């Protein structure tokens, strides 16, 4: 049975789309047929991060309104055969999302795909609610700073109260915490919340810590999800997240300040 996974955070700019792109790519690289849906109608970004913006003809809202078929709107990823992108519409707004329409599309996708990753918009309004409503599992993306943690707490409350599973009294959505933009150095200096601080407050299992890295920005700008950059810490950290999601037990990495070796001290980075 296909699984619907929402990537959400409450707060904007914490790395939801980056996480959605890399997580979906990682799932697909493991041989799972995966589709990633951009729920940020009106502010579509996922296609940029996935590098397929020039191939968007039909979008999520077109399919919702029966203006195109799902097949026409799905964009096959250029790196992975198993990965498809369902882009958001840039010219509509979130009101275009209806519960019935989203459910219809998800049910159709469930026939063909193993994983459906829903990239949620920021906020707690309609777009975010629609992205999480049908979820089976959730990746909660949080930066180690207080407002992001507070907003994630809020979204966890909404998952527990307003999702379909919650309203039907089914088994609750399985929640996973992804801490992004983590900088060990700044934690050491006391400028950033530690992993334990975040875990204590949110009280959900941690599935990965993505270190702050320049490679994320350059990956976004070049339209290649950072998980493809296997030399970068962030890319490897996302690969770990996917492995843990698939049930592999891996220790956390990149939590401590890297000690510079003699060579790198001499030659710089």
């Amino acid at each position, binding site marked *: 049975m296909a699984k619907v996974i929402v990537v959400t955070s409450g707060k904007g700019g914490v790395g939801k789309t980056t996480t959605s792109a890399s997580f979906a790519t990682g799932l697909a690289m493991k041989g799972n047929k995966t589709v990633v849906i951009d729920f940020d109608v009106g502010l579509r970004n996922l296609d940029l991060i996935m590098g397929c913006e020039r191939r968007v003809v039909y979008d999520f809202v077109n399919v919702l309104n029966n203006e195109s078929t799902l097949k026409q709107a799905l964009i096959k990823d250029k790196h992975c055969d198993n990965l498809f992108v369902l882009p958001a519409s840039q010219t509509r707004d979130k009101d275009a999302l209806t519960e019935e329409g989203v459910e219809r599309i998800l049910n159709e996708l469930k026939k063909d795909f193993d994983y459906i990753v829903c990239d949620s918009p920021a906020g*707690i309004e309609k777009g975010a609610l629609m992205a999480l409503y049908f979820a089976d599992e959730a990746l909660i993306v949080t930066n180690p700073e207080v407002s992001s943690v507070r907003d994630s*707490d809020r979204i966890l*409350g909404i998952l527990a*109260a307003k999702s379909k599973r919650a309203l039907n009294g089914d088994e609750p959505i399985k929640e996973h915490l992804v801490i992004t933009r983590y900088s060990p150095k700044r934690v050491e200096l006391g400028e950033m919340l530690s992993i334990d601080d975040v875990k204590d407050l949110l*009280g959900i299992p941690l599935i990965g810590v993505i270190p702050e890295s320049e490679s994320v920005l350059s990956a976004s700008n070049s339209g290649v999800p950072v998980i493809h950059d296997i030399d970068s810490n962030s890319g490897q950290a996302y690969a770990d997240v996917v492995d843990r999601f698939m049930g592999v037990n891996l220790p956390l990495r990149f939590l401590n300040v890297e000690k510079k070796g003699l060579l790198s001290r001499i030659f710089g980075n």
Partner: protein
Amino acid sequence: MQTEVDDSVKLEAAVDLKGSVFTLPVLQICSGSIDAIESELTERLSAALKFFKHAPVVIDLEKLSGQNLDFSALLKLLARQDLVSVGVRNGSAQQNALAVSAGLAVLKGGPLQNILVQESSESVEKPKAEHRTDKVVEEKKNNKGLSSATKIVTQPVRSGQQIYAKGGDLIVMAPVNPGAEIVADGNIHVYAPMKGRALAGVMGDTKARIFCQSMEAELIAVAGNFRVFEDQIPSDIRAKSVQAYLDGDHLVVAPL
């Protein structure tokens, strides 16, 4: 720079007429006898005196079925009870005319919910934060005293959530996070870190208490007397097991 002209006076209106919708308690009059009304009202309001202090009320005349009423006496009686009469409804044409001459408005009748006070735990108004969304726990239905009014919560109460234990105590066995609000007509117990807001005795029960296993709250209130912990919680109670109770009007938060 523009020079000041007389026209500028007109730009700011002295009044602005706008519409809004209010939920008001309705006082249903079933007897024409002012004495009978007074004794009954005194008895009923005594259970929730604080709550109805200066409350606006609408006088419903439906049950009077045209019988005449001494409106000026009724207004005086309601004023003695600290109620503010705003108008009448469901009156006959004659009753309405009398009401208008007594200074009352005539309101259009709508569906009437049974909101008159039965006992102290029932009330016309909900606590003021009630309009917030995401209430995770629904109010319990009246199940004829088979279970107590105590509400037990085992899931974390997260930012933006509000839990209200109507007519009883609230026991929370999971963390209450910053930005969350737990409210009870009775006492509140939290057997986990308490980082949000706790309001006990919201219907005016001054004997209500709050017990926290680890006091890290943003706000603590008992029967409307509150204390905010804006900066640092004093070290003698921070992250300690504490109780909060009213000593007169003073809210005491002390280690257990």
